[in-house]
């Protein structure tokens, strides 16, 4: 900083650019933390849906799996929308297009998952059970690497737990996956509390 002819403080271009960069980084950090606070309860809710879906796969006949999962997905998407709305700052206004982004993203995921089953035709139930865990794990990991690092940890955890279950506990995979939803719930608490 230096004084100009009027005795006012002036700053150099580098100082000004550094200050603007500081502002941007701070606001991005704040936004990420706010995202964690909103995302935590959504993750906790999905852990319950996850457990219900996998317990259904473990206890109910296969013809019920698809309708139950579709129903649970609808509940999950609606719940995520409500929780996201409740979690935003009152003065922030509606995030532009968030509802459509969430609905479109969920629909794309569902179509992708159903298409994979249709194309690959898994003959072993364990393969069909492991697929959602791997898919969600990799999605969280990608979100984590692009925007919010804690999701990378959660994604790696879900991916790892799914593979461990598939390799070591295949006969009990639906129950293993239902139990793994506890890790998803704790991940939600971790996001929410920080």
């Amino acid at each position: 900083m230096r004084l100009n002819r009027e005795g006012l403080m002036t700053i150099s271009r580098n100082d000004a650019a550094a200050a603007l960069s500081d502002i941007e980084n701070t606001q991005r950090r704040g936004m990420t933390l706010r995202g964690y606070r909103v995302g935590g309860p959504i993750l906790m809710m999905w852990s319950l849906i996850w457990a219900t879906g996998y317990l259904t796969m473990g206890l109910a006949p296969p013809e019920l799996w698809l309708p139950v999962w579709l129903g649970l997905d609808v509940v999950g998407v609606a719940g995520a929308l409500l929780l996201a709305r409740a979690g935003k700052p009152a003065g922030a206004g509606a995030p532009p297009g968030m509802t459509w982004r969430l609905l479109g993203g969920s629909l794309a995921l569902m179509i992708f998952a159903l298409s994979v089953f249709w194309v690959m035709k898994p003959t072993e139930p364990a393969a069909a059970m492991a697929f959602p865990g791997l898919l969600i794990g990799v999605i969280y990991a990608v979100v984590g690497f692009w925007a919010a690092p804690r999701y990378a940890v959660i994604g790696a955890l879900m991916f790892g737990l799914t593979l461990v279950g598939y390799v070591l506990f295949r006969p009990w995979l639906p129950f293993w996956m239902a139990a793994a939803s506890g890790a998803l719930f704790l991940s939600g608490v971790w996001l929410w509390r920080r």
Partner: protein
Amino acid sequence: MAESDDIIHQPLRLKIMAALSAEKGQPLDFPRLKTITQATDGNLGSHLATLEKAGYVAIEKDFVGKRPRTQVRLTAEGRKAFRAHVDYLRAVVEAAEDEG
């Protein structure tokens, strides 16, 4: 050209103002503000006191159950001063680019 606001320009105070400005009028509690600004307790407290004295932030203390809570929010004056300072910073960068 706008002028530099020397109260806001101090690096930690700039971060505090930036963090609060992004909250769109909602308060931030002390621990979250500390995490966002990456400051220590003492440092954050002393710079918040400076900003409060300037009328740029309002600090409210209450209890959640038995636990004390400190919440900080940007005042209207603080929001105006922060915007003006950001405009000033942008003007400095743009002026330097034009000269270059």
